[in-house]
């Protein structure tokens, strides 16, 4: 018993509203007899039935909206019910079963002696690792060098004893010009620094701080020789964590259009090593006491210098603290450790004239510098953050108020 389906009555229409039925169930209809009036978005149309026979069902009442392709009425007829041609915006495309997910190779033959590599990204991976592609056997079709091939080559190389970054290839200086390729860890660092400067609109605030009281406090803490040494960096870190709890925007990262702030402070502590700048991370630094922090920082720094830090300990930081005072300088417009939002630096501590109670006296002065991603906060917040730390340094006893 064929059903007459509502056709698309005008170039992409999707539905029609039943206005009036001209027949009822039980009526006998002839071919092309008008049986219903419907209204589409464009017009009111009288629709004729394509079969003859007895109406056995009407599929809707006046006022009902019928979608194109849905039944209008059913007719009991001897006809075999020819297929109704559907037009319009039917998106009823059957989904094909997708059995095998082939890798869909590109099957590229090597050209001119240059080995084919699966993507520019992988070519770069190889280049950064200092790999000679012609020595790699490609496992993809047509000798395509895949990521796995490159990874395998990198692992094989890392298994080799030479852990020191290779010195620059011996290039006879031509007129005294020396070329050092930027490769390996140096390349990673270089890329990260470039990316930071490229993507982050950073601003810097700094302040001169009287560290005299902090030095006294440290001396007092370290009087007990049996206890772990509390370093300046540990103190600074503790103050920083406290400040971050008050200004969590600075413990953030930018993802797309959002500022993402996490509950934990994974503190990166910059360390200068033979391999260059490294930033080991103390995870969940906010849960460390001052002593635990001092121990963790000392240990990380030692291992960084020994080269025994794993990748997990070098990533995932949310804030970085940097002591460049060891270089003998006061301030630095530091480069933020991408994708973090800020970096705090402390310079050298030396005696300088300072005014205390109206008198000019020598004090142990230092400079604190905060470079921050201006998208996460304004100058007020950044200034407040830095001021808070400065106050901690100048009046460390006051820190007790916040504990």
């Amino acid at each position: 018993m064929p059903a007459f389906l509502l056709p698309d009555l005008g170039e992409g229409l999707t539905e029609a509203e039943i206005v009036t039925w001209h027949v009822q169930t039980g009526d006998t209809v002839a071919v092309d007899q008008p049986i219903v009036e419907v209204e589409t978005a464009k017009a009111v149309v009288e629709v004729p039935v394509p079969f003859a026979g007895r109406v056995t069902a009407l599929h809707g009442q006046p006022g009902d909206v019928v979608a194109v392709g849905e039944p209008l009425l059913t007719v009991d007829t001897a006809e075999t019910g020819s297929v109704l041609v559907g037009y319009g915006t039917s998106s009823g495309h059957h989904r094909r079963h997708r059995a095998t997910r082939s890798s869909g190779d590109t099957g590229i033959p090597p050209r001119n002696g240059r080995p084919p590599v699966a993507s520019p990204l992988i070519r770069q991976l190889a280049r950064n690792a200092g790999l000679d592609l012609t020595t790699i056997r490609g496992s993809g079709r047509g000798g395509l060098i895949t990521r796995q091939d490159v990874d395998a080559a990198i692992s094989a190389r890392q298994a080799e004893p030479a852990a020191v970054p290779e010195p620059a290839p011996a290039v006879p200086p031509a007129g005294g010009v020396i070329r050092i390729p930027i490769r390996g860890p140096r390349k990673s660092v270089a890329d990260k620094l470039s990316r930071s400067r490229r993507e982050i609109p950073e601003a810097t605030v700094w302040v001169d701080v009287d560290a005299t009281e902090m030095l006294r406090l440290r001396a007092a803490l370290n009087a007990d020789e049996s206890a772990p040494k509390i370093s300046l960096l540990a103190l600074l870190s503790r103050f920083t964590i406290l400040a971050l709890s008050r200004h969590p925007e600075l413990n953030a990262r930018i993802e797309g259009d959002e500022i993402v702030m996490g509950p934990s402070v994974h503190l990166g502590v910059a360390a200068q090593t033979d391999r260059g700048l490294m930033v080991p991370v103390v995870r969940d630094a906010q849960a460390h006491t001052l002593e635990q922090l001092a121990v963790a920082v000392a240990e990380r720094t030692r291992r960084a210098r020994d080269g025994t830090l794993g990748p997990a300990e070098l990533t995932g930081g949310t804030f970085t603290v940097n002591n460049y005072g060891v270089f003998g300088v006061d301030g630095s417009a530091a480069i933020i450790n991408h994708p973090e939002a800020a970096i705090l630096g402390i310079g050298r501590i030396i005696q300088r004239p300072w005014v205390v109670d109206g008198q000019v006296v020598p004090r142990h002065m230092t400079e604190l510098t905060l470079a921050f991603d201006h998208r996460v906060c304004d100058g007020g917040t950044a200034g407040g953050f830095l001021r808070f730390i400065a106050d901690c340094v100048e009046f460390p006893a006051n820190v007790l108020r916040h504990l």
Partner: protein
Amino acid sequence: MTAIAERSPGPPVTAPEVTMATALNQALADALTEDETVLVFGEDVGPLGGVFRVTDGLAARFGDTRVFDTPLAESGIVGTAIGMAMNGLRPVVEMQFDAFAYPAFEQITSHLAKLRNRTRGRVALPVVIRIPYGGGIGGVEHHCDSSEAYYAHTAGLRVVTPATPGDAYMLLRQAIECPDPVIFLEPKRRYWSKQATVLDHAGTNPKTLDRAIVRRPGSDVTLIAYGGTLGTALEAADAAEEEGRSLEVIDLRSLSPFDDETVTASVRRTGRAIVVHEASRFCGYGAEVAARLSEQCFHYLEAPVLRVAGFDIPYPPPHLEEYHLPSVDRILDAVDRLQWQETSPAVRAGG
């Protein structure tokens, strides 16, 4: 993550459902109300209200000096619109169907696009040409063309295409206010699509006329679509999710100028891109996108930029249309061809 216009519009729960045709109608009505220099004209836009009813009721409401039918000549419609714009009016004209715009092509490319430049900025032509385009409606020959590449290739024209009713309203309002000539391509297969949304001008942000939007965030592949193929792309993303792949879907909205920022940010994250359009692949719009991504994202690409597009044939008759239009399956096949094995790190135990 960024808001997805289709899924979570944000406006109050009581926002009514509007079709794209209604949204466009409202945009024209509001523009006519707010700016007395706006005119709407073309063939059958007056009493009939347009063959897609986009100008329904406007002639009755605003009178036939502001909304009117012209004699049947597309070159006449665009040519006179140029003259009217030269003399201070803001014409919003209609080409009845994509393929009927071709008699006006001379006026569009030789003059509409070039008069500002020709006169060193002294002559501005704030003309909007509305053109229903694309297929998927079972239309006979000449009713389903995708001619966007011709216009996008013409410097001096802006080419804009909404895929949702909300965007149709906003982009048409902004196009009418734009000092440049805008080719406003309306995907006719979406005219009756509905969206529950408040129609918002976003007049405070004219830049949206230039901007793409991420409709659905994802991490594995960037699907770039516009107009009629946005729906297919979103369906493909749903299907891919079942197969364990996360597709990010971008609705370009502005074909010219191209929103490099949004698209390259996405592709740099995903490393893989597919452009989806109805128009034929050869020299189609996707070729421009692929070239740009190759230039700007080369070192982030894990695979070539692929295009899922119509075949290089004249648009098929209704019964063969389904073989030609980009389908969910074809998009998924293209996703499969993005070199997953060759570019992923091997899974190591404990790694």
